[in-house]
């Protein structure tokens, strides 16, 4: 056996207690999201607040329920690489389509 083989997989899964606490956090975050949506005072910052809250939920599920936090980094890479590309593509497309007016600038085509 070469040194590269690191033996069988370590099962460093969280305990049921952690699962329950994460579940509670997810519920609270969802309540916050819906709450923010209904409070007029928040409407100025609605989009950034919602994006932060939903990323938090996303991260919690991926880290704890999908065990990425303690699992092999290869899995993080297999999710993270494409995720970065997907987000990059999304931002670029929004820029190309919605930013068209400013982007076109001198071209003035629109």
């Amino acid at each position: 056996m070469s040194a590269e083989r690191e033996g069988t997989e370590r099962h460093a899964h969280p305990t049921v207690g952690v699962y329950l606490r994460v579940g509670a956090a997810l519920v609270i975050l969802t309540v916050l999201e819906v709450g923010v949506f209904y409070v007029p005072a928040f409407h100025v910052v609605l989009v950034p607040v919602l994006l932060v809250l939903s990323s938090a939920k996303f991260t919690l599920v991926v880290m704890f329920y999908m065990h990425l936090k303690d699992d092999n980094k290869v899995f993080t890479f297999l999710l993270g690489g494409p995720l970065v590309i997907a987000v990059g593509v999304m931002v670029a497309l929004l820029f190309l389509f919605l930013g068209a007016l400013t982007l076109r600038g001198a071209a003035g085509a629109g």
Partner: protein
Amino acid sequence: MSEARGLTSWLTTTDHKRIGLLYFWTALAFFLIGGIEALFIRVQLAQPNGQVVSAETYNQLFTMHGTTMIFLALMPLGASFFNYMVPLQIGARDVAFPRLNAFSYWVFLFGGLLLNASWFVGPLFHAGMLNVAPDGGWFGYANLTERQYSPGPNIDFWVLGLQILGISSLAAGFNFIVTILNMRAPGMKMMRLPAFTWMTLVTQFLIITAFPVITVGLAFLMFDRFFGTHFYVREAGATPILWQHLFWLFGHPEVYILILPAMGVVSDVLPTFSRKPLFGYPVVVYSGILIGLMSWGVWSHHMFAVGLGPIADSVFAATTMLIAVPTGVKIFNWIATLWGGDIRGTTALHFAVGFIAMFIIGGLSGVTHASPPADLQQTDTYYVVAHIHYVFFGGTIFGLFAGVYYWWPKMTGRLLDETLGKVHFWLQFIGMNLAFFPMHLIGLLGMPRRVYTYAPELGVGTLNLVSTIGAFLIALSILIFLVNLWRSRTHGQPAPNDPWGGATLEWSVSSPPPVYNFSVIPTVTNRLPRWSTERHGPMRDPPAVPPEPIHVPGGSWWPMVAALGLPVLALAPLTQTLWVAFVGAALLIAGVYAWAFQPFEV
């Protein structure tokens, strides 16, 4: 442990080597079909006002030529080598998921057959033969492909066929990523992987990320055509440009999906025949990864004429030009590999060097249309046709032929004839330059691409005739290649384990390898295991007879049954018959369940 024989054993096979051969022969058949389509195109254009085929037929020919060559010939020829060589190169007994591998092949075959069936099934749609093949171009620009402008089933075949082929590529992508990351022999660290395996890995990452995008684009088109949505319909407030973005988001990575495997082959062939390690191996690997990454940031350079605005044009021009850097680095490393070597001019080396020489031209003309204003004169003309053929023919096909001549003895146990091989090479080399070089001029002189006819006043008749002659030279060279393949069955010299003195693991087993590949899984201690360098001697080849019995997994029908569900599902919208959809779904689900619960040990 002896190999099963007979038709059933091939239909149910899960052996990566057999699947590799199936891929090879199927892709070769499609390559010939695509080539015949190309000859029709060239005959039509041999002179102005050509009358050989009608406008409608011509549009089907160039659409099917592009689609066939890209999805049914070049990608699967690459896949044939992934299948056959990657497990051998990493010291594995098979891929990670042998049945998924069979599934990929069958899906590819059925998808290809569905696409090509469109040539003949016109009468079923109350149209003539040769009337309902896809005719919207391999790029299928909306809104021309919408039902309003393409009412027939032509585009339906294209959309459904590509969706099916995408599933095949995706399944193979997951399979090979896991195989390469997780099935390596002891000691085969990532930076000891042969360059071909590395480029395969990068290619698979591009496949699993790029294909979902085209899947979505095609799904929108499918919904527009069948279910009355308006994803690309201007009248509903949508824009057909969305299709172009989705298509090229996939399309540019696709270009590298086609070229990276060929680069990998060349990176393996050059060291073997110059008897020198690949120069700058880590740099070649990293530049391959970089090219893969950068291919995600350049797609809009296919759309400079769309009018995205000066800022977007500048950004995409810059990223596109930057890609030339890692590509150039690879070329310099290949030349440096040859430099100081003891170069044996085998056919495989001829093709590998031909790849470099021709790919340089394709790369440089690529830089000329990375510049948006210059591209405004070049895009959609024959200049770009010249460019893509220097990249795909001079590049990918030369690279893959290098692979064929290099690995044929390993795959069949017979050597190909070197004299015929060199005749093939030189004819193909001259033919391709005759066929494609004049296209640069034809384009600059103002002939657009995808035209079934052109006016004599354009002044490009003679150049087109030269190009047509070149195309027939290529056809002749391919005939010689086929003769060579055929003759090798009976006249080819039996191949020893290692006819070339290769450094990588595939040469340490018999030709063709036993069904279990390695009698003993090798333990790898360095990057060139079979060579002696200043630091180490060659490793010992595994014994010819396994010291203990090796379990070889049996075959399975279920991957094929599940795969068959997909074309049947596709028939439902094509024929507007609902019950067919249920049959297809039932086949797919039954196949998957039976497969999941069938005992299968690797």
